[in-house]
């Protein structure tokens, strides 16, 4: 298969983990949606931040 965008795959992974985390940790659908969005955003933002930080390391 053609190589998909790294960002897209990371976002897909973050979305899956976010949905699972939200459903497992909260009870009502609005709380679950909020929690899923937070996990998704956190994973995506930390992934991008770590990606930029790794530029500082030459190895």
């Amino acid at each position, binding site marked *: *298969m053609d*190589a*998909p965008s790294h960002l897209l*795959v990371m976002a*897909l*992974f973050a979305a*899956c*983990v976010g*949905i*699972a985390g939200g*459903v*497992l940790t909260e*009870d009502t*659908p609005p709380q679950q949606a909020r929690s899923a969005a937070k996990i998704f955003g956190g994973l995506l933002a930390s992934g991008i931040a770590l990606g930029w930080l790794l530029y500082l390391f030459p190895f």
Partner: protein
Amino acid sequence: MAARQAQKKRAAPPPAPVKPRWLVYLLGWLVPGGAHLWLGRPRTGVVFLVLLPFMFALGLAFEGRLFPFDVAEPLTALAAVADVAVGLPYFIAKALGFGAGRVLAVTFEYGNAFLITAGLINVLVVVDAHDVALGRK
């Protein structure tokens, strides 16, 4: 007073039959979300029934590898345990010959991440089903 108590007793629903815990664990492991469906949590059950096989299928589509049980390689053995933890999708994929993995594929590591994470999330789902079965949730 006594009549009211008797009426209350009659109106109260019968207690839900206690489900054997080992069956909850087995069903939860084999069918992602199956334990929640059985325990009367259809919404949660359907979410995991769709989400975990989807993640597992994505892992296979990204040419991830279903790791062998190799005790000489502890990390590989742990990855194999995580792969098996997803339940029936693992055995179906193995039976159909999927999961050989292609190390040279750009998406190889992504595939592994999806495969392993699907299994580990299923472990969390079984633990959640355990709490539901005990009435903690």
